[in-house]
């Protein structure tokens, strides 16, 4: 792993103006990402992870959104940058793999054309070169008969194939950073692993950095070196993937771990669900946002908000007044 920092995220806050008031989806998030590194961002739906990935890219809607803090990609500030400046970054330096391949491809444009648009418009390739390269990319993402699929419309491809096309589009401009936002939610379980392995493989092969956003800790366990656990728009625990799995301190992280199904469990084991519901971002509790659902919560948790503090291991931070004891030799 290189020490060179590719992405520096500092105190990023993203708020939306809604008819019900201001909704803070991401609240004071900071982390660094080195070149070639892969980072997992995990949390329940509504924890702000998708908004965070869009904010990192600067891809939020043009109006009704307020972003503060700093996101530096290769030294270039994304927050507050003009659309034109961000356009220079998009596709070439940072690209995104979207959540649902059923909706993220243009239904009336041939898939080959959607790939070679990046090549022609952004890289200035001519028609023939772009076509050849697009077919190469289709082959690289594992689409059989790539030559004939070039002219196919999205509706004639399966979900897994479509997501491979979305990945090919993201790879077309050889970005240094790939943001994968829940890249397998819309897919069959059998296809999910294939897509994740593909992402893993191209990340390594092309030497990109990757941020993998997911609600499923099982997905990030073997594919990322570091994790950021989010709850109600804030980072509640972060560290190396190994530390977060084996030596997590935040009760929410444990709850998340326990709620993901494991193959080693006997069949028909009841899944541990996290009690309660994710908080309403328009009406957050004063103290720790997780306190209402937490078995360890005290009065202090309900009145005062914990900040990230270091654990024993370097780079491992957690935000909790009543951290869990480290379970020695706990299975991950």
């Amino acid at each position: 792993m290189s020490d060179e920092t590719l992405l520096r995220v500092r105190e990023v806050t993203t708020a939306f103006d809604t008819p019900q008031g201001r909704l803070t989806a991401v609240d004071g998030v900071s982390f660094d990402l080195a070149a070639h590194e892969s980072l997992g961002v995990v949390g329940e739906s509504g924890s702000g992870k998708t908004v965070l990935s869009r904010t990192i890219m600067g891809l939020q809607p043009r109006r009704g959104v307020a972003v503060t803090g700093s996101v530096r990609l290769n030294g270039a500030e994304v927050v507050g940058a003009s659309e034109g400046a961000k356009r220079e970054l998009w596709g070439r330096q940072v690209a995104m793999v979207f959540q649902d391949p059923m909706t993220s491809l243009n239904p009336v444009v041939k898939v080959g054309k959607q790939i070679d648009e990046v090549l022609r418009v952004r890289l200035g390739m001519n028609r023939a070169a772009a076509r050849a390269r697009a077919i190469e990319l289709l082959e690289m993402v594992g689409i059989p008969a790539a030559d004939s699929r070039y002219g196919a419309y999205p509706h004639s491809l399966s979900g897994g194939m479509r997501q491979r096309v979305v990945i090919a589009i993201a790879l077309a401009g050889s970005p240094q950073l790939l943001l994968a936002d829940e890249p397998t939610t819309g897919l069959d379980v059998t296809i999910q692993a294939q897509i994740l392995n593909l992402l893993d493989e191209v990340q390594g092969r092309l030497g990109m950095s990757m941020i993998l956003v997911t609600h499923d800790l099982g997905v990030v366990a073997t594919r990322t070196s570091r994790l950021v656990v989010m709850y109600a728009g804030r980072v509640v625990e972060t560290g190396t993937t190994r530390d977060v799995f084996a030596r997590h301190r935040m009760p929410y992280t444990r709850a998340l771990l326990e709620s993901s199904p494991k193959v080693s469990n006997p069949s028909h084991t009841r899944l541990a669900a996290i009690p309660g519901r994710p908080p309403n971002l328009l009406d957050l509790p004063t103290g720790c946002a997780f306190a209402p659902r937490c078995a360890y919560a005290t009065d202090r948790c309900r009145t005062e908000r914990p900040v990230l503090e270091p654990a024993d291991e370097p780079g491992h931070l957690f935000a909790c007044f009543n951290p869990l004891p480290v379970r020695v030799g706990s299975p991950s």
Partner: protein
Amino acid sequence: MARYLARRLITLVGIVIIISIGAFYLIHLLPGDPATVILGTGDSPQNRARLYAQLGLNRPVIEQYFVWMKNILHGNLGTSFISQVPVWTTIRAALPIDLEMIVLSQILSFAVAVPLAMSSAKRPDSWLDRFLGAFSFTMLSIPAFILVVVLVLVVAIKWAVPHTGVSSYVPLSQDWVTNLESMALPSIVLAIGSVTVYYRVLRSDLIATLQQEYITLARSKGISQRRILWRHALRPSSVALLGTAGVNIGGLLAGGFIVQYLLDIPGLGYTLVNSIGLSDYLVVQGIVLVVSIGVIVINFVFDFLITLVDPRIARE
């Protein structure tokens, strides 16, 4: 695709037959009598009977219909009772005027409506969007015949642009400058109605399309907003627009009649109105038939265009 086209073609033939029956009976229901027009009111009953027999009007109505249809299938629309000119000759002279009017008005409409809808959809609720919304609503509620009068007053009389206004029609092949001068006014009147409809339909579809995830993906490629609008948003947003255009153009044939009549442009509408007044049955029937076939063919063409624009539709 071939099956889809074949199915549509069968429907088309059925509709044309129904319309031919309708057109035939309607004109016979109207008051008026060609014999009176030709002979005047004072002629003897014997002469009228002779004329009736000569025109074939003494036979049962159903038989008259079948004679008419038989002739049509042989490519013969008949000859005018009044002017003795073959009906097809009359139609062939008038039809290009209607076509020119429609083509000009549609080119104008799309050229104006598409960019306007885009600038509105880019920023819904902006001052421009609000203004266009209010303006289009106003225009939508003004009937064509009032617009014609206002435009004649302003363009032809106040600004004194030559060859606009009444009775200056010259065929396109003869003198295209004069032709365009005289066709500009009716085309603009028809275009104003179309622009407002197209603008409204396309605007709302574009706004919906621009919310789609594939637009965000297109944006994430780092391509310009202009390219996103034209290459990614317009096509998936134009299904309803094309459907509306197909129906609207059919309506323009009828709307064009009023404009033609007011401006003395000798198109099909003008001829039709005159022929009804003269009880010139075969001319009226011929024009109604040709216009209905035209409307059906236009709808057919636009339905086909829709399948080209959205490849998902042809499958269903």
